């Protein structure tokens, strides 16, 4: 931690997008209590979306304001406003905006029309943004908690629903447990290196192989990995995810699947790939270090997600397992990135993949959130039977969403996966080839459950009347996500370039 104290206006500009979101989060909270008690809270959603759009505009200004991969340390280096965090901010802020739009009518229909909801979504996004920009263990931990606490509450937002309360309890207990483990890891790293600053930790490890190989450093690293692993639901720490994703209201599930996961990967890539590097912390004589551990976890996660999803009849639960498997594919990229040079192509593939995954997920959940009426979501597989013909647009959106998640060309999910696996192959190590083969096998398995949903949409007859909560906001979510899924898949070059530039801003530290 840097102890220099002085007011620096550049700090405020670097942090401006996040500060705007924070300001609107506070405003949403105050609107809730100062508005007329019986008035609709829909306007708070509009205000929140407006705030997020302003924040996105300033993120864009940051991006275009400088040439090349920019990186401005703020708060004496405890945080950084670089292209990398700007890239993730786009995912978080647009994800939060889509969540707000999607929730507007959902909350009214489910009789949950409270302004705190939007405030919590915004606070969650603030936590995520801090996580992507954290360069100090203290900031990283607080950001993680800001995000987590907001999402715990959102999960249990349907107070009358037992599923929601149960999901929230599980998420909370697991999350708090994971935080404690993560924190212990941080304490050990701090004890080993004498600083909570990631750059100082890197220098300490680089300069002293004995220190990097010490038991305390290894334990610290393992604990940090376990703690973050819980948050992004990688095997064997994924068991809470299906219950929580099922219990949470559908828009919140989408927000979790996109935002929390992206924030976790933002922290993992920055922390592991750049701070620890491949040479530090070797677990075995083969010198693979933590990469070897991630390698095994990637395989486990892919299988756990895809095999778990096979027999699910609850669509939310199925997509929960699917999101676990996507964390597995992303880990393939992280491993390849570690093997193939830190700011190499494989890590930019991870970033691109996350972008495609985010909008595909919102496309799928945007449709699922519409199925239901007060107090009940209609999310059984059979509830989607025949929807493809009755509601052609919803059918098309859900189909393209799951096909993109499955990795069918020409959608965003396909190109993301293709590019990710291609880069993993180009690392040129035999064990990476095996990992790619396993990822391909898993994609085949995944086709089964994704296509089964499509079969239900178009080839089965409806078994019961399914109420649908349509709204302009939800249509906007679907149109935006649909457009982005297509554009990202068909014209990937510009977006790849953006991902590369973001990654380069991490630079050699």
């Amino acid at each position: 931690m840097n102890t220099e104290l002085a007011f620096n206006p550049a700090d405020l500009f670097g942090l401006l997008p996040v500060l705007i979101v924070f300001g609107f989060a506070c405003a949403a909270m105050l609107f809730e209590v100062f508005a007329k008690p019986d008035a609709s809270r829909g306007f708070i959603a509009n205000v929140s979306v407006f705030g997020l759009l302003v924040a996105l505009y300033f993120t864009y200004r940051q991006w275009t304001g400088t040439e090349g991969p920019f990186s401005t340390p703020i708060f004496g280096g405890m945080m950084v406003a670089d292209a990398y965090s700007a890239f993730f901010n786009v995912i978080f802020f647009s994800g939060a905006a889509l969540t707000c739009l999607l929730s507007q009518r959902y909350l009214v229909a489910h009789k949950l029309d409270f302004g705190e909801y939007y405030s919590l979504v915004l606070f969650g996004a603030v936590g995520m943004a801090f996580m992507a920009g954290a360069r100090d263990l203290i900031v990283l931990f607080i950001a993680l908690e800001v995000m987590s606490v907001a999402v715990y509450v959102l999960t249990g937002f349907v107070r009358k629903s037992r599923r929601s309360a149960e999901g929230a309890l599980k998420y909370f207990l697991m999350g708090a447990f994971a935080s404690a483990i993560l924190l212990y890891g941080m304490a050990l790293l701090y004890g080993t290196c004498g600083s909570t600053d990631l750059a100082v930790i890197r220098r300490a490890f680089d300069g002293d192989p004995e220190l990097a190989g010490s038991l305390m450093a290894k334990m610290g690293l393992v604990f940090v990995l376990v703690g973050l692993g819980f948050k992004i639901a990688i095997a064997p720490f994924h068991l809470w995810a299906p219950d929580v994703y099922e219990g949470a209201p559908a828009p919140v599930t989408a927000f979790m699947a996109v935002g929390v996961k992206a924030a976790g990967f933002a922290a993992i890539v920055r922390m592991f790939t750049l701070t620890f590097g491949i040479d530090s912390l070797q677990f075995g004589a083969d010198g693979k270090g933590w990469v070897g551990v991630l390698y095994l976890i990637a395989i486990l996660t892919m299988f756990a997600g895809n095999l778990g999803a096979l027999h699910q009849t609850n669509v939310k639960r199925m997509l929960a397992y699917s999101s676990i498997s996507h964390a597995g594919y992303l880990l393939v990229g992280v491993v390849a990135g570690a093997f193939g040079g830190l700011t190499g192509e494989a890590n930019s593939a991870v970033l691109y993949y996350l972008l495609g995954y985010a909008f595909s997920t919102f496309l799928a959940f945007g449709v699922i959130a519409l199925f239901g009426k007060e107090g009940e979501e209609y999310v059984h597989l059979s509830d989607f039977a025949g929807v493809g013909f009755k509601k052609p647009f919803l059918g098309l959106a859900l189909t393209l969403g799951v096909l993109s998640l499955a990795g069918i060309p020409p959608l965003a999910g396909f190109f993301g996966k293709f590019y990710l696996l291609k880069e993993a192959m180009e690392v040129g190590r035999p064990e990476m080839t095996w990992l790619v083969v396993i990822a391909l096998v898993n994609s085949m398995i995944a086709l089964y459950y994704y296509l089964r949903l499509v079969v239900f949409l178009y080839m089965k007859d409806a078994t019961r009347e399914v109420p649908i909560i349509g709204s302009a906001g939800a249509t906007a979510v679907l149109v935006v996500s649909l457009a982005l899924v297509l554009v990202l898949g068909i014209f990937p070059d510009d977006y790849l370039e953006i991902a590369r530039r973001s990654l380069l801003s991490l630079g050699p530290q």
Partner: protein
Amino acid sequence: MTIGLEHYLILSAVLFSIGALGVLVRRNALVVFMCVELMLNAVNLTFVAFSRFRGDLDGHVMAFFVMAVAAAEAAVGLAIILALFRSRKTLNVDEADLMRH
């Protein structure tokens, strides 16, 4: 014998393990949560011990933030536990099994 860094570290490791074990074996949601708090405080002890041993302040600062975060978690956690208790009339985490497939 003087009390050195290692004694604090051993004590905090033991406390942390007791907490972790409690989370894994206890069934009452409140007790599980108390065990998590024990783990957090064990970590705080580690931070403060390292900080004192090294003579810098980072660990103390971290301990302050951990306390604040633990309070926020406690508030949210108790609210969630109360919400579940209202609907289920039990605090046993094993009975929170609505979503087994």
